């Protein structure tokens, strides 16, 4: 989901795709993340496990970031979108 979000945003920031498409694709990504979060939240055994808990936290974080990115795209605020993009979980792992 993180890679997908990055690819969708990068295409918009490069001026290749429209704001309409980008917002639509990010909304769908958010819906998919929410499904995963719900599945995690419904599994108590997984949440007790440290890896499961980390996954749930990462999904929470990603969900918030994607919501912020949707707002950035709707406002056509490329600078804010770049900042939020840099905070995506995979970026931090790479660093």
């Amino acid at each position, binding site marked *: 989901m993180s*890679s*997908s979000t*990055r*690819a*969708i945003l990068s*295409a918009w920031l490069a*001026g*290749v*795709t*429209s704001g*309409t*498409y980008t*917002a*639509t*694709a990010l909304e*769908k*990504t958010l819906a*998919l993340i929410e499904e995963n979060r719900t599945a995690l939240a419904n599994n108590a055994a997984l949440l007790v496990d440290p890896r499961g808990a980390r996954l749930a936290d990462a999904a929470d974080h990603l969900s918030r970031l994607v919501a912020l990115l949707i707002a950035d795209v709707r406002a056509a605020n490329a600078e804010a979108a770049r900042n939020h993009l840099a905070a995506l979980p995979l970026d931090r792992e790479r660093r």
Partner: protein
Amino acid sequence: MSALLDLLLGIVTGIGGFVEVGSISTSAQAGAEFGFQLLWAVAVAAAMLALLTEMSGRLAVMSKRTIAAAVRERFGIHFQAVPLCAELVLDLLLLTAELGGAAIAVKLLTGIGFQWWVLPTGLLLWTTLWFSRFSIVEYGIGLLGLVTLSFVLAAWRLGPDTGDVARGFIPSLPSHDGVRYAFLAISIVGATVSPYLLNFYSSGTIEEDVTPDERWVNTATAYGGDVFGSVVSMGVLVTAAMVMQPLQIKIDSYEQAALMFVPAFGRWAVGLFAASLAIGCVGAALEISLNMGYMLSQIFGWSWSANKPRVENARFSCAFSFVLIAASALAVLGFDPLRLTMISVALTVVVMPLMVLPFLVLMNDTQFVKDQRNTVVGNAVLAALTVLGALMALVVIPLEILGG
């Protein structure tokens, strides 16, 4: 000259039946998750479909009956009830997915929720079916379907390594996630060998009144059209493998899938993807609706033909209208078209033996095919398909749960 023109149009419009929501989804997911490794599955599925299509055309030319009518006559309505119900349910699911796919294509361009586009799309389909002759549905939509060649153009522009692509045609075990690999391989077969294509093809042969002397046109169209169509499916797989796999993006939605065109087409990417998806889905939806009307009419003995005035085929016209309304109502409920597609292609594999086994009997019955019975090779292929279909049916449900 007319036969040659028919042949050319038939081959070119082979895309119309081949490239639709099922083949786009399964090939794109296969490419994104396993690179070129599942190209062999597309090739095998295309060969299966070509053989079955040729046989369904031959049956229609020689017996002047469609598959549905011939099965009804040979085995009786009690036998046919099971495959008929199975195919109707499958076709309805697939039609719902096609309507959803076409509506999502419009959503990609407008940003307005796909459910809002389902009813206008359904109305467009119904209007086309109501006012068009068979040739318009088959050739018109097939020619528009040439836009899906953009998948092949994208793959070509991305310049894949020919050696890597060639190795994809040799079946090999995956380095990861074997269950998902098996599920996608079976789904590719299910998406390609859709039962509706066979009865639609045999009905079309009768609509066009193909004579035994013109049977070579049927054979060449079946093989040529399916090869042409499969090249587009391979284009989808290769493009997804080149673009999505390096980014580690699994395709969970059509919104994500549109990204695969970005490196090849830049600003045109989303528009071209939306056009390809919309036209592929609309073409398939027209064929499925028409086929459901054909099947019900042929089994219950009603008058049927897309070439006659609708008033002369009232029950046939009501049948395709009703299935379009039912599928539109289901699509408006908001089922995810991609998931619905994956479920319906898996179910296709489950019911495949029910469709192929009576076909095997018919293709050897001289009352129907006269002196054009299947050769040993043709029978071996059909028997293998039945056994393979039964085996796949046994494993596809567990795979759907574990790997879907």
